[in-house]
C-alpha cells in the first residue's frame, strides 16, 4: 500500500468515524444515533485495518454490530411510544460540558504535540492472528482466563440484576 493511498484511506476512515460519532451524540432521535454508532464502529474497523490489525477489525465489526443491534432494540423498547424523535436530547449542562470537553481535548493535543513519536519502525508481521493467538495462550494466559471468568460473571450479574424482583411477601 503506497503512502498516498494510505494517507487518503486514513483521512476517509477518520472523517467517517468522527462525523458518525458526532452524529451519535448530536442526533435527537435515538434510532439515528444507534445507526450512526454502527457507522462509527465500521470507521474504527477501517482504522484497524490500516494498522494491520485484521483480527481486531473483524472482532470490532462482529462484536459491536451485535452489541449495538441489541442496544438499538433496548433503546427503542425503553422509550415511551410516540416521542422517538425527541428521544435523545441533551441535558442542561450542554454548554459547560462542551467547554470542559474542549479543554480536555486541548490538553491531550498539547501533550501529543510535545512528543516526538519518531518514524514507523518496521513492517508489521504478516500473520497477526497467529501471533495474537500465541500471545493469548502464553504471555497473557492468565488475563485471558480472567477475562473469560469476567464475561461469565458479568452475564450472570446482568441476568440477576435484570430479573424481575419477586415480592418477598
Amino acid at each position, binding site marked *: 500500500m503506497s503512502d498516498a493511498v494510505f494517507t487518503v484511506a486514513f483521512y476517509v476512515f477518520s472523517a467517517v468515524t468522527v462525523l458518525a460519532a458526532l452524529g451519535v451524540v448530536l442526533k435527537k432521535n435515538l434510532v439515528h444515533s444507534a445507526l450512526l454508532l454502527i457507522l462509527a464502529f465500521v470507521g474504527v474497523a477501517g482504522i484497524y485495518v490500516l494498522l494491520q490489525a485484521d483480527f481486531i477489525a473483524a472482532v470490532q465489526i462482529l462484536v459491536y454490530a451485535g452489541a449495538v443491534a441489541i442496544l438499538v432494540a433496548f433503546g427503542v423498547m425503553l422509550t415511551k411510544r410516540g416521542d422517538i424523535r425527541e428521544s435523545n436530547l441533551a441535558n442542561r*449542562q450542554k454548554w459547560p460540558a462542551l467547554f*470542559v470537553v474542549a*479543554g*480536555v481535548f486541548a490538553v491531550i493535543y498539547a*501533550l501529543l504535540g510535545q*512528543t516526538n513519536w519518531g518514524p514507523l519502525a518496521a513492517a508489521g508481521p504478516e500473520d497477526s492472528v497467529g501471533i495474537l493467538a500465541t500471545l493469548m495462550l502464553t504471555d497473557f494466559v492468565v488475563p485471558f482466563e480472567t477475562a473469560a471468568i469476567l464475561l461469565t460473571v458479568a452475564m450472570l450479574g446482568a441476568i440477576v440484576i435484570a430479573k424481575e424482583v419477586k415480592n418477598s411477601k
Partner: protein
Amino acid sequence: MIEFAMQKAWLIPFLPFLSFVLIGLITKRSEKLSAFISIACILTSFVLAILVAVGIFGAGEEFIEKSFEYSARWFSMPGLEISMGVKLDPVSSMMLFVVTLVASLVQIYSLGYMHGDPGFSRFFAYLSLFAASMLGLVIATNLLQMFVFWELVGLCSYLLIGYYYFKVSAREAAKKAFMTTRIGDFGMLLGILFLQIVFGTLNFTELAEIVPKYADYGITLGTLNLIAILLFIGPVGKSGQFPLHVWLPDAMEGPTPVSALIHAATMVVAGVYLVGRTLFLYKTATTAAEVVAYVGGFTAFFAATIALTQIEMKRILAYSTVSQLGYMIMALGVGSLTASMFQLFTHAFFKALMFLGAGSVLHAMHGKVNVWDFGGLRKKMPYTAWTFVIGGLAIAGIWPFAGFYSKDEILLEAFNTGHTGLFWLAVITAAMTAFYMWRMIFLTFFGEEKAENHPHESPFSMLLPLFVLAFLSVVGGWVALPEHGWGYYIRLGEHEAGHAPAWMIATATTAAVGGIALAAAMYWKKIISYEAVGKAAGPLYTLSFNKYFIDEFYLWINHTIVDGLGRLLYWVDIYVVDGIVNGLGFFTKEAGAVLRHTQTGRLQNYALILFAAVVVLVLYMYFKSPAAAMIVLGGGN
C-alpha cells in the same frame, strides 16, 4: 508449726480476705454462717500471728537487725522492680499480734453489738476486709505494697464509717474521712515516687541501707528532707495529725466496734507504723524528723484541749485517740521506734477497751450520747464500768497499768534527745488526758443515777472482749520490764536500757493523779464548780468546745475559695469553652446547609466536575512548572 507460720505468713492477711469474699459471694444470706466464717478466719490468723511472734521473738538476736523476708515478683520493667512479699521482724510481728487480737475481739464483740442489724453479714464482710488490708499493710516489704493496702484500709474505713448509709451524718462522715485521708495520700504518693526516682527501689531493707548515702544519688539533704516530709503527709492524714485530724472524730458515725477497730488497731496506727517503718529516713533527714516531732507534740496537746470540753462519749475518746497518736508521732520524731511502738501496743489495748466499753454503754442507753445524760451507771453495769475504769487508769498513766510504762518511755526519749519543750508539753498533755478521761468516767459511771435511764449489762459476747482487753491493759506494759524486754527487740539502732529518773516518774504520776483528782473534785464530789471554771476560761472554753472552729474554717475555705473558683470556671465553661464548641458546631451546620446544594445527585454532573478538575489541574501544573508537568503527565521525548 512455727516454721510453717513464718513461711506462710501471707495467710494471715489472706484468711480474712477469703472470709470477705466468701461472705460477699456465698453466705451473705446466712448471718450465723457469715459471722462464724469471719471469726474463724480471724482467729486462725490470730493463732498464726502468735506463732510468728513466737518464731521471731524466740529467735532472739537473729531477726532484730535483719528481718525474715521473702517476696514474689509482682511486675517489672526496666528500672522498676515491684514485688509483693512478707517482711517479718519484731515490729511487724508485734503489729500482727495486736491487729489480729483486736480484730478478733471486735468481731466477737460485734456478735452481740450488731445483733439484729439488717446488715449483719455485710458488717462482718467489711470487718474482715478491713483486717485483711491492715494485715497486708503490716507485712509489706516495700512502700508500694504498703500503699496499695494503705488505700484498701482507707476504702474499708469509708465503707464502715458510712455503714449506716441511710443516715446523712454517716454518709458525710465517710466522705470526710475518705477525702481528708486522700489529701494525705497524695503527699505520700509523691514521696514514694521521689524515693523510687532517686533511689530506684522501694524495698524497706534496701532503702535503709542506701538512704544514709543519699549524696551518692545526687540529692542534697534538703531534697531528702522534702521527700521525708512529703512521705509524712500520708501519716498526717491517716493518723489524724493536725491539721488533717478533722475526719477522725467524725469517724465515730460508724458502729462502735468499727470505731474501736479504727482507733485502736487499724487505720490510724497505719500512719504511725509507716513512719516507724521508714524511720531510717528520718534518722538521716533530721529537719523532717523535727517537723514530725513537733507536729506530733502539738497534735497531742491540741487534741487534748479539745477533749476537755466535749460532751459526747465517743467524741471525747476520738480526740483522746488523736492526742495519743500525737504522742506516738512525737516519739518517732525524736527518733525512738521503741517508745512509739510501745505506746502503739499499749494504746491498742486500752483504747479498744474504752471504745468497746463506750459501745456497751451506748448499747445500754439506746442511743443517748451526751455524758451529762448518764450517771451512776456502775451499779447497773458493773463489768463495763470497772473495765472502763481500768482503761481510764491505763491511759492516764497510773502505775502499774500499761500506759504508765509507755508514756514514761516517750517522756524519757523526748527529754534525753534534748526536746525539753516537747517534754513539758507532753507532761501537760498527760495531765489533761487524765482530767478529761476521768471527767467522762465520773459523769458516766459515778454520781447520781438518773431515773429516766434504764441501763442493763451487755451480753457475754460483748463483755468477754472487755475482760481480755482489761487484763492486757493491766499487764501490757510489763513487757518492758525484763532485761531482754521491749526495747531489746523493737528498736532501730543500738538498744539502750534507759530508765526514767525518779523525778520524771514523780512528775508524770503527779500530773496524772492531779488530773484525776481535779476531775473528781469537779464532777464527782462537786467541790469545785465546773460552771465557774468554764466561765473563768471564757473564750478558751468556747474555742475548745467548738474544736477551734477548724471544721468551720475548712468549710469556709471550701465555700469561698473552692466554690468561688468553681463558679468562675463554670462561667468560663459555659461562655468560653461551650461558646467555642457550639460556635464550631453552628459553623459546620450552616456551612453544610450551604454546601449541600452542590450535591445535585446527578452522576453526569459529578463527571463533568471531575473532568473540569482534570483540565484545571493540568493547566495549573503547566503554568507553575512546565517541565515538572511534562514529567508527571508523561509527555516530552
